[in-house]
């Protein structure tokens, strides 16, 4: 059994590219935060800055992984857009632009 998601192929490629872009930009933001070495600051201030950055660098890393996973899911689609089950189809559909939120999921 396979599942088909009824959307134009171009939409899926665009979605993949958009998530890739999101991944790249968030990676860049994360790299910037990770690269901050507090300088010219007192010890107490540096400690607070480091604690702050630890939390939000980690959070951005999580978002980077999510974006990458979403992009990867679109990239993994077969050329004929076959998906293994309806749950996965619904998940991918939820990542598409809102105009395609009601795209038909058909079991074939």
């Amino acid at each position, binding site marked *: 059994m396979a599942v088909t998601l009824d959307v134009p192929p171009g939409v899926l490629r665009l979605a993949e590219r958009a998530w890739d872009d999101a991944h*790249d930009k968030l990676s860049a933001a*994360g790299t910037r*935060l990770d690269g901050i070495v507090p300088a010219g600051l007192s010890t107490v201030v540096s400690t607070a800055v480091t604690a702050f950055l630890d939390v939000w660098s980690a959070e951005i890393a999580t978002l980077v992984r999510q974006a990458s996973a979403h992009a990867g899911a679109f990239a993994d689609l077969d050329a004929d857009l076959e998906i293994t089950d309806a749950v996965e189809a619904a998940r991918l559909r939820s990542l598409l632009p809102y105009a395609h939120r009601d795209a038909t999921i058909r079991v074939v």
Partner: protein
Amino acid sequence: MASVTLPAPVAPLPVLISRPVGVLQLGNDLRAALVNGKDVQAWAEGSSGDAFGGQAADASRHALTRFSRRLDVTEAALESAVVATSRFEDRLARLSSQRLTLDGDRVGLNTALDDLRAEVAGASDAEVPLLQARADRLQQRAARLLADVVDWATRVADAEADFVAALARVDTFDDGRRAARDPGRAEVDGVLGRLGAGVADPAAVAAWWRLLSRAERQTVITEHPAIIGNLPGIPARDRDAANRADVGADVDELGTRVGQGEQLTSTERDRLANASAVSEILDDHRDDLDPRTGEHLLHLTQYQPDEHSGDGGVALFLGDPDRADHVAVYVPGTLSETGTLDGTLGNIDALHRAATDAGDGLVAVGFWLDYDAPSIDGLSPGELADLGSVVTPTEAAAGGDDLADYLDGLRASDTGPPAHLSLIGHSYGATTSSYAAHGGAPIDDLVLLGSPGAPTSTADALTSAEVHVGSADHDPVTLLGTDGPGGPGLPGPLGQDPAQDSFGGRRFEVDPGSYRVQDLLANHSSYFADESLDGVTGIVIGNDPDEVAGRQPGGYQTLDQLVLGSTVASGGEWLWERGNDAVDGLTGTVHDLAEGLLGLPYAFHPGR
């Protein structure tokens, strides 16, 4: 020996460990990260934007919305940190300035003590009461100073504590979620809406900006750095913050993609090259401080990496033009691209140092390079189209309009009494500056260095500002405005030679330059040294330099006379050394120069 009780010298002040420059860099990094985060947020919100049109329940289940909301939590936390950082930086800047004042008082007091001690050593008993009274006054002064130092140290500790507390308020995910839901969170659309049509009026922009809260300003800066960083009327410090964020975000994002092996488009490669060049300058000058204020020196007031066929547009200042008493803007000429700015920066650095040393007030010297200056060095086939602009004033006229807007913006964001504003153009930049002045740029002085021509026949017709002209006798480019197609003495391809006596400008002394033919082009690039630099420095700080006579018909060598005469005077040694190829090349050059237009590319020398 007389006995007088003297107070102890005041010990050195505590060091300000957290420095404004350190906090500034932290803020720049946070803003750069926020810019890329907000780009993603804008996409995520836009992609699911329809969901907010009435089916919120449905949208809340949408993955894009969930992603967007989670990202918004991080954004809110970073926004809070940026605002706290901005406030902390301002407080530290004030404390740093106060420390300078206190330390000056301390040094003065200790000097007075040393003087008194020396007097006591040679005093008689009869002089003791008087000396003791002086000692007592110094004691009171020392006590007041020490109290001020304690108060200052307390305020340092308070500033640090407040900053640490501000960060602690958003250092967990739940804190960030609360910050994201805070009804008082600055909302960028509403902030921009208040500006409305005033965006085209620098004075309206400046007034709008003054009324925004710190949080609103920081939100707009990180949401729209490319707008705020280049908007006339926004203060230089805030333009700097926006542009640094934009530069950082560009380097980070495009660098990440290159690092992943991705092929960038041509436009993206240009953008990355320009961003990297600017970023390198910012890094090189990261720790430079204004010698008068102790605040960070370099302000990036324009960053347009995609403009001018990929050359990019950039402007910066050494010093804060909004607070300076004397402001000078330098417009370089040919070969002025964002990727190669070292020479231009060297010129304004020399002028800033000289003007700061020579004057009493605060000085800000910057360059503006946001026009399509001709590129002629090592031209690739793709750049040949630039040649046309070398020999026509088209780009100078268009650049002049933009330059006038930029100068209007400086006037609008100025604080305190209006600054003395000088516009200095070199080579093609002098022609561009002339167009800006002719278009009504609000300047006090116009300085034309090595000008190939101006658009009017007299200084009075050009501008109401004072017009100063630095033209070396042996600079061939300055002769292009004297031998136009109409004949000797008539305007050249870029207009009238402003060094002509009939033009009516104030020609000041510059070194005439070498009379060896092989040095002629170097003469065109020698205006930021020796007498010329002295003259420009004087103008920048409001002094009139020594004037010399303008060019009179028949009283100077024309372009072809200069080239041929200097060749003869050089004794042919240069040609001899280089053989026939050089002879052919020089012959061609002389021929082209004599013909005017095509020779211009050879006559120009990198303006940097």
